[in-house]
Each structure stands twice: as structure tokens, then as C-alpha cells.
């Protein structure tokens, strides 16, 4: 299989950092109260992932094996600082809402994990693409979880889109239903755990269905080969 295709499948589905590796759960559960919060953090994480993967891949032949982890962490921290300053400059309100979770991207295991497991062993083009796909996979889950919680909790979608996308996006907000007593559980962290569990369960169901279908295909093949097994003895 083409390496790019393989990387896409790994990042978006088979090895999704949020749903399969369960990495970076802290920001995942803490900030996904709305779609935009999730999207903002997702984009920030993706940028850091791409940057750190590229840099780590570039320096991979010069880094002494014994101190590679501190070096990777410094690279990641540098990129997080860049992203943090950029958000501070261009999306100040979102920067305030996400608060501590932007600097905390440094500690997101998904990033150091990709640096260690992939970028430090592969050429720069693949490493960059891997960072993009892993970041996208993470962002998609952030957005989906944010949508679930925002819909259940506030009855809206895309509240505060202008914080991330500029003033024109104010009209993007969709009010699905209005309620006087919001479903607080969905907005609180326990709701994030429940939502995350449901998402993982849904993924497992889909995987099982796919597996079942493949098995049925393979069973047909086995029947065809049954006639020639005697010749090996």
C-alpha cells in the first residue's frame, strides 16, 4: 500500500490518537464543551504536530539516542509557544477560553508519541504527512465530541464561531432547540467521559461489522482452496 494512504488510514481511523491510542485525553475531555473550542484546540494541536514532526525528522540523524526525549520535548515546547503566541495575537478571546490547555499541548502524549514512534525514524515528507493526519484524526474527534456535548448541553451548534473565524462567522451559530434548563451533565467533564465512551463504542461496532464482512469474503475463498490441501502431505 502507498505510504501516504497507509498514514491517512492510520491517523484518521485505525490508530486514531483520541479513539484508539486514547492519548491527550486531558484536553480532549476538558475543552470540548462546544464545537468551536474543540476545533480551536484541534487546529492548534495539528499545527504543533506537523511542526514537531518535521523538525524531529530533520534532526533525527544528529540527535544522540540517549537524550532524544528531552530534545523532542524542547522542540515541541518551542512549537507550542509559537502557536500560543499566534493564538494570543489573532484569536484572543478563544485563547482566553482555552486558557491553560494551550500550553498544556506540550504534555499531550500524542505529540511526543508521534515524534518518538514515527518522525524520528522516517524522512521528512512522510513525517509531515503523518503529523497532519494524526492531527486531523484528533481534531475530528474533538469536533464531534464538542458537537455532541454542545447539542445536548446548550441546544446549539457552532456558538462563538466568530472567536475563531472572525466576525463574518457570527451567523454560523445554529440554534437547534432552546431550553431554560440546560443538560448540565453534558457540559461537565463526566459528560465528556460518557460521550467519549459512546464514540469508542460506535467505532468498535463499525470495526466489527467490517471485520465480519471481510471474514465472509475470506470464507468463500477457503472453500475454493479446500480441494488441493491433500497434495501437501
Amino acid at each position, binding site marked *: 500500500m502507498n505510504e501516504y494512504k497507509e498514514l491517512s488510514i492510520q491517523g484518521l481511523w485505525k490508530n486514531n490518537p483520541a479513539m484508539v491510542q486514547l492519548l491527550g485525553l486531558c484536553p480532549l475531555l476538558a475543552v470540548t464543551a462546544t464545537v468551536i473550542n474543540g476545533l480551536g484546540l484541534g487546529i492548534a494541536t495539528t499545527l504543533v504536530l506537523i511542526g514537531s514532526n518535521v523538525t524531529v525528522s530533520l534532526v533525527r540523524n544528529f540527535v544522540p539516542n540517549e537524550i532524544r526525549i528531552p530534545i523532542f520535548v524542547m522542540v515541541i515546547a518551542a512549537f507550542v509557544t509559537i502557536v500560543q503566541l499566534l493564538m494570543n495575537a489573532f484569536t484572543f478571546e478563544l485563547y482566553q477560553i482555552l486558557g491553560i490547555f494551550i500550553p498544556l499541548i506540550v504534555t499531550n502524549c500524542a505529540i511526543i508519541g508521534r515524534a518518538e514512534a514515527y518522525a524520528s525514524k522516517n524522512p521528512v515528507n512522510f513525517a509531515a504527512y503523518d503529523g497532519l493526519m494524526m492531527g486531523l484524526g484528533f481534531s475530528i474527534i474533538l469536533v464531534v465530541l464538542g458537537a455532541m456535548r454542545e447539542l445536548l448541553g446548550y441546544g446549539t451548534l457552532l456558538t462563538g464561531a466568530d472567536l475563531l473565524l472572525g466576525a463574518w462567522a457570527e451567523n454560523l451559530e445554529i440554534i437547534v432547540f432552546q431550553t431554560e*434548563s440546560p*443538560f*448540565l*451533565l*453534558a457540559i*461537565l467533564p*463526566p459528560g465528556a467521559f*460518557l460521550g467519549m465512551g459512546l464514540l469508542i463504542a460506535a467505532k468498535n461496532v463499525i470495526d466489527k461489522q467490517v471485520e465480519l464482512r471481510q471474514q465472509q469474503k475470506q470464507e468463500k475463498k477457503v472453500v475454493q482452496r479446500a480441494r488441493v490441501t491433500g497434495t501437501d502431505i
Partner: protein
Amino acid sequence: MKLTLKSSPHHHNRRDTGQVMRLVIYACIPGIIAQTWYFGFGTLIQVFLAIVTAVVTETIILELRKKNTERVIKDYSAVLAALLLAISIPSFAPWWVIVIGTFFSIAIVKQLYGGLGYNMFNPAMGGYVMLLISFPMQMTSWLPPLSLAEQTHGFIDAVYMVFTGYTSTGFNIEQLRIGVDGVTMATPLDSVKTDLSQGFTLTEAYTNSIFSGIYGQGWAVVSLAYLLGGLMLIKTKVISWHIPGSMILAAVLFSGLFYLVQPDIYASPLFHLMNGSLIIGAFFIATDPVSGATTVKGRVIFGAAIGLWIIIIRVWGGYPDAVAFAVLIMNMAVPLIDYYTQPRTYGHKSS
């Protein structure tokens, strides 16, 4: 560490699950009558809504899981969980509160963990805590007992109230909560907690019209009615005395300790027993055979710890009552308790 344990009953029992569950449901009846007598017909409507929701939810999920629906529905466990949740929430809460709560109890707390026998947490209390956290306003709108209420309300009013938020004569929940003295009434536990936090002594707190002596009007009778049902359960050997006994004893001892030290700030053990949901919790909720401890020693520890937690949360915590939280906390400890309290097998020395 292997945490599996052969579950009770280890003795032969002629009752099946359905019969046990039904007996518990029957034992609730005196309490439900008392609750209806003092707090209006809302309770009955909540019970009805809860049971319908529970049976529908359970059926749908069992169909999805391709289980034998008819057999499982007939064990009445879903009905019992729904009933316990319905009598725990304020009688005039809007209909969607109990529907959401029951759905959560059955679908998430019970069936997602694998159904009856596999649920780690008490379904009724899981649903209750979810509701309390999600809808604090609806879940704390308790009515004063009818004898103290400024507005009387009948069955029709209860139906209107639950489904529309207004009685047939147009009163809303806040107006119904006003007592004879023209002040919104809280539950006995809530009113004492508020008064204490404002620097009043207990003697002053007891002058609130909801009290007669140290007992909340109506609340004490409801507790006694559930006590009667609970004793019936012990008499018919549906539950053992270990959990309710140790739970009540621990609560009495612990609150008695406080009471002895400073009777003006810490309420007496009798106050803790008769107001709030300690009795119903001890006999009907903590005794859930699935999510509670199974060994004899374990049951004593389990019950005592719940009693302890209730007093801790009532005295220092943010919530006036604590049975649901206490039960859920100890549900988490059950595997550990059962692991360390395995009875000695005959012929083996105690380790």
C-alpha cells in the same frame, strides 16, 4: 489481582429474581402511600412515568442486544429501579426529568454495563445523581407537606403540574412551595443546613414551621413507613439485616459523636435518621444485591461505610442529603471489599 467471586446466594432458594424484586416493590407501598398522603399525587405520576420509561427502554435495548426480552422484563428489576428513582425525586418535577433519569438509569448505568447482575453501580442512584447534577433546580423543588402548604392540590393538579408546569388553577411550582407562613419551604435537612450556615443554632433552626420538635412534618412519617416496609423485607428474608443494620448503626454512632461534642451545631442521631432518605436508603437502596457487597463481613463494612459517608457529606458537604453519593462511592469499593472478606472455606485455616 483476581477480583472474581462466586456471587450469592450460596444456599438454595425457592424464590426467583422476579419474586424477590416484586416483594421489594410491595414493601415500598406503605412508604409510597405516606409520600402521596403528605406530598400529593405527584409521586404516583412519577412512579407511573418511570415504570413506563424503564420497561420501554429495557425492551428496546434488550432487542438491540438480541437477548430474551420477555424473560428479562419479567424479573422486574427495571421496574424496581424505576420505582426507587421515582420516589427519590421531588413529586412535582416536570415529566422529562423522570423520563431522562430513568432512561439514563436503565440504558447507561444498567444495560451498558451488561444488564442485571453486571451493573457496577446502583441504577436508581446513578440516575438520581445524574439528574441532581444536571437539573439542580428541578431536583430540589420539594413541596411542603400538604398540611403546611398554602395551596392545596389534588390529583388533577398533580397531572397538570407534572406535564405543563402549572396546576389546573394556574399556580406554578414556586407558588406551591409556599407554606402557610408565606415563605418558600425547604426540606428539613435543607432548611437546617441553610440556617446553620447563616450562624443560627439548631434550636433556632428547629423553630422553622416545617419542624414539629426535631422531626420534619410528614418526612418523619414517610421514613417510618419505609422502615415498616424494610422490616417486612428482613422478616421475609428478602434482604439480610447486615447492610441496613450496620448502615444505620454507623450513622447513629458517628452523628452521636458530633452531637455529644456540640449539640448546638450538630444534629442528633434521631434527626439524621428520621429526616431525609437515610431509612429508605438503608433498606431499599443500599441492599441492591448486584451493586452491593456479597460476603457477610463485606456487607457490614459496606453498610457502615455508607452510613459514615452520609453523615460526613451531610455535616461538611455541599448537599443536604447524601444517600445517593454515599451509595455510589461505596459501589466502587465493592470489588475490593469482597476480595478481602472472602469467608474461610470449611476445613481451611483462616489466613
